[in-house]
């Protein structure tokens, strides 16, 4: 590729011909101040802060939108540029309230830094400043229009990256207001980025509001704990409390989701259990760390081979997994991580980077809500779509990506799997034909003909569908991405932490084969799709040890409770969606007597006379083999078939202990089709009773256009609202609906 030579302040650099002056200046190491420019958004040329002098041009040119040309001579340190900068800053500060002492952005504010460096100390503006009231958009973001400099970074992010329109500029010129029109909540899963890219304090996080100052925080780069994409995060800690999360690096994408940005305050939650507990009659009493290890080891000694089983969360790090594996091997115990009742194992496919998704020409998404389970991946799919790719979403419940895709069909929950199976085999199911228009069907057909197709299987896809997709995609040369739940399922699979499923272990407990159960990092009542089985198993098991951060419902059955550490207090390795290892660093000291799972296991194993290892260097991910599991394509029949899924703001790990985050979806809802609502005689906002032979729950109705008849979506993940009671081992279930 040809390059052009540009001279900036006497430094000559070679850049590509489509670069801008600002990019060339960055290469030359010349600092040009800017507000509206963002390296991952389209240039807008709004703030005029980057004005520079170009030889041969009569006026000053904005560096962020002016393309370079060969032999261009740019000057950034002349009197004219200096005067222009001072003028621009004076303009930007005309209506700025200069309330830095109370502003949360102070310390990382572009306006503060640039004024300090390039501005004048005085202003000629003598009139009254225009002030606007503070507006709270939901429990997560605060918007202060007075501080806004109208750089439109947030608006450009919302439209160009997240593909929405609700966050925009209203009114005109000097009276322009940024915001969402006629609504008090903005919950589009990516509001975190609005806070992150705002160069001033106009949009700030409500979680961090006024709590501390940015320069008091020590940042440690770690990896997010909420899904298997594993975005890099900087954890801001002061006095062993986690206050703020930042995302300062393009790894894997420059964007972050709300889960990673807001759902962290469980780390500091007052309800965290920080000392080991043991059961004394009906009460739990505190016990010392040495005694608890002694007593657990003593109890475990009494069990024979195969009578002990371990269930671990799919969020634990590889080091913990190695310890669990060696501990389980020493005790000849069964172990499994598939706490969401999955019957499938992770598939190792050829997709090795998120840029593979962004570069795809056709993307087919089946059986799952990608924006809820893997939010940042949804942004990559959208990026592909905006650069011309066809995106098809065929799912029983997906609104975020669906609304923004070329082909979108909401299919009946009962037939979701069958439709997906037919589609992969190249047939268009009748139910699908009903849901799509002729042009959409045409697009879908052409996508299936194409060689450059990426199939993304959501978390609901069963093992049968996964095996089929794997075979077909390797035959046809398609790319396949199979998503799993948890933040480290691929690593746990590579470690071999699976047997016959969590369901198998629980049934073993009920049958009396397994007598001692150790559950770590998970509340089975919340995650396993059959609360009745969990209850039966936990109340009949002879000896139960639970380790976690909080005393949840599973812990209520425990004989011993071990306090574990959160992701911020522990270092370790995780394997991400693309099968590469990522390193998590410790940002703070463990609270109280809580310690990592591997240390608890080591101290118990020590007393049992066995060795546990935390060695993970030997784990070779390139030699992981694909294990296709057998299974039937799921078919659920009934008058109404429900898909049970947590809404986005309940889907994060420990969401119930993240106060602001979980407030964003306050009430469990049932999504109904308009015909069904008419037949039931209910309107949006009414209450309906959802019941089957196992239980009965009241939900608030939410109508959705395009929702197929007799197919409903139920929210789960709410405190004291165990929707899992309705389920029988799968996340789809036949239910009956009545007006409340």
């Amino acid at each position: 590729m040809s390059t052009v030579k540009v001279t900036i302040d006497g430094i000559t650099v070679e850049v590509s011909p489509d670069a801008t002056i600002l990019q060339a200046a960055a290469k030359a190491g010349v600092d040009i101040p800017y507000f509206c420019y963002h390296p991952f958004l389209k240039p807008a040329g709004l703030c005029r802060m980057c004005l520079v002098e170009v030889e041969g041009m009569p006026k000053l040119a904005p560096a962020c939108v002016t393309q370079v040309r060969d032999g261009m001579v740019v000057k950034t340190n002349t009197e004219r540029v200096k005067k222009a900068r001072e003028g621009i800053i004076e303009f930007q500060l005309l209506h700025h309230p200069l309330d830095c002492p109370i502003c949360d952005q102070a310390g990382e504010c572009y306006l503060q830094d640039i004024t300090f460096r390039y501005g004048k100390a005085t202003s000629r503006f003598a009139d009254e400043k225009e002030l606007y009231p503070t507006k709270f958009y939901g429990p997560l973001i605060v918007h202060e229009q007075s501080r806004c400099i109208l750089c439109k970074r947030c608006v450009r992010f919302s439209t160009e990256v997240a593909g929405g329109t609700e966050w925009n500029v209203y009114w005109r010129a000097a009276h322009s207001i940024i915001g969402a029109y006629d609504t008090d909540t903005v919950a589009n899963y990516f509001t975190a980025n609005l806070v992150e890219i705002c160069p001033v304090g106009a949009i700030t996080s409500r979680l961090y509001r006024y709590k501390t100052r940015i320069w008091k925080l020590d940042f440690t780069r770690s990896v997010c704990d909420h899904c298997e994409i594993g975005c890099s995060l900087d954890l801001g800690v002061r006095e062993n409390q986690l206050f703020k999360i930042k995302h300062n690096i393009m790894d894997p994408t420059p964007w972050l989701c709300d889960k990673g940005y807001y759902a962290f305050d469980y780390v500091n939650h007052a309800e965290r259990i920080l000392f080991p507990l043991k059961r004394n009659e009906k009460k739990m009493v505190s016990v010392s760390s040495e005694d608890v290890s002694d007593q657990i080891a003593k109890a475990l000694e009494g069990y024979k081979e195969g009578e002990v089983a371990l269930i671990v969360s799919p969020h634990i790090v590889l080091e913990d997994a190695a310890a669990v594996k060696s501990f389980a091997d020493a005790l000849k115990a069964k172990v499994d991580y598939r706490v969401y009742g999955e019957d499938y194992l992770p598939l190792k496919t050829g997709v090795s980077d998120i840029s593979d998704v962004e570069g795809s020409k056709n993307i087919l998404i089946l059986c799952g809500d990608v924006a809820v389970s893997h939010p940042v991946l949804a942004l990559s799919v959208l990026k592909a779509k905006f650069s011309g790719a066809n995106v098809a979403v065929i799912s029983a419940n997906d609104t975020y990506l669906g609304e923004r895709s070329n082909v979108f069909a909401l299919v009946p929950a009962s037939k979701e799997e069958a439709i997906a199976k037919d589609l992969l085999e190249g047939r268009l199911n009748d139910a699908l034909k009903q849901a799509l228009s002729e042009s959409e069907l045409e697009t879908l057909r052409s996508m299936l003909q194409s060689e450059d197709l990426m199939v993304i299987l959501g978390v609901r896809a069963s093992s049968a569908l996964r095996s089929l997709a794997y075979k077909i995609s390797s035959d046809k040369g398609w790319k396949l991405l199979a998503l799993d739940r948890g933040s480290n399922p691929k690593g746990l699979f590579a470690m071999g932490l699976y047997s016959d499923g969590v369901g198998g272990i629980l049934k073993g407990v009920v049958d009396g084969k397994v007598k001692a159960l150790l559950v770590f990092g998970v509340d089975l009542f919340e995650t396993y799709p059959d609360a009745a089985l969990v209850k039966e198993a936990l109340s009949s098991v002879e000896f139960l040890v639970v380790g976690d951060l909080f005393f949840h419902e599973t812990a209520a059955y425990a004989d011993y409770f071990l306090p574990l550490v959160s992701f911020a207090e522990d270092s370790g390795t995780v394997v991400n969606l693309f099968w590469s290892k990522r390193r998590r660093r410790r940002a703070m000291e463990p609270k109280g007597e809580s310690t990592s799972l591997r240390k608890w296991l080591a101290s118990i194993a020590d007393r049992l006379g066995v060795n546990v290892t935390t060695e993970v260097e030997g784990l070779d991910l390139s030699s992981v083999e694909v294990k296709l599991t057998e299974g039937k394509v799921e078919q659920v029949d009934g008058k109404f078939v429900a898909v049970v899924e947590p809404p986005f703001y309940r889907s994060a790990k420990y969401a119930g202990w993240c106060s602001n985050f979980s407030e964003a979806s306050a009430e469990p809802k049932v999504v109904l089709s308009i015909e069904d609502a008419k037949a039931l005689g209910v309107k949006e906002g009414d209450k309906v009773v959802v019941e089957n032979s196992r239980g009965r729950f009241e939900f608030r109705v939410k109508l959705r256009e395009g929702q197929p008849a007799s197919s409903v979506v139920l929210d789960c993940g709410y405190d004291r609202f165990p929707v899992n009671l309705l389920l029988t081992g799968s996340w789809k279930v036949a239910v009956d609906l009545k007006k409340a």
Partner: protein
Amino acid sequence: MVGPLLKGLKITFSHLFKPAFTVKYPYEKIEVAPRWRGKHVLRVDEEGREKCCYCGLCEAVCPANAIRIYGEEAPLEKSDVGKIAVIYEIDYRRCIFCGYCEEACPRGAIELTTFYELAEPEREKLLQTKETLLEKR
């Protein structure tokens, strides 16, 4: 030998008839300069609202690292800007009374008073909190 001794005694006895240098502390107290840097006070405004809005400048400028603050959202009855310091601690084991905090404060919220009797029988009591620092009206 006797000469220097007498000379010394003369000075001693002459002081018996001059006014005393020392004061009978604690029954009598010395006058201090109006700009004396003693114990801090957190000022409140005319309506009794706290002036401090936790900008963190006193905490940042403190060379002895004696100040520790955490902030909070507050109703307008408590603060005219809606933000107060929920924890404000000055550790007099560390404070060197340089007065930089007062100088850095953009709202005149923290001031050093002329009160200098800071001795405590226990070291822990030298950690002053908002309760003892806040101006009473």
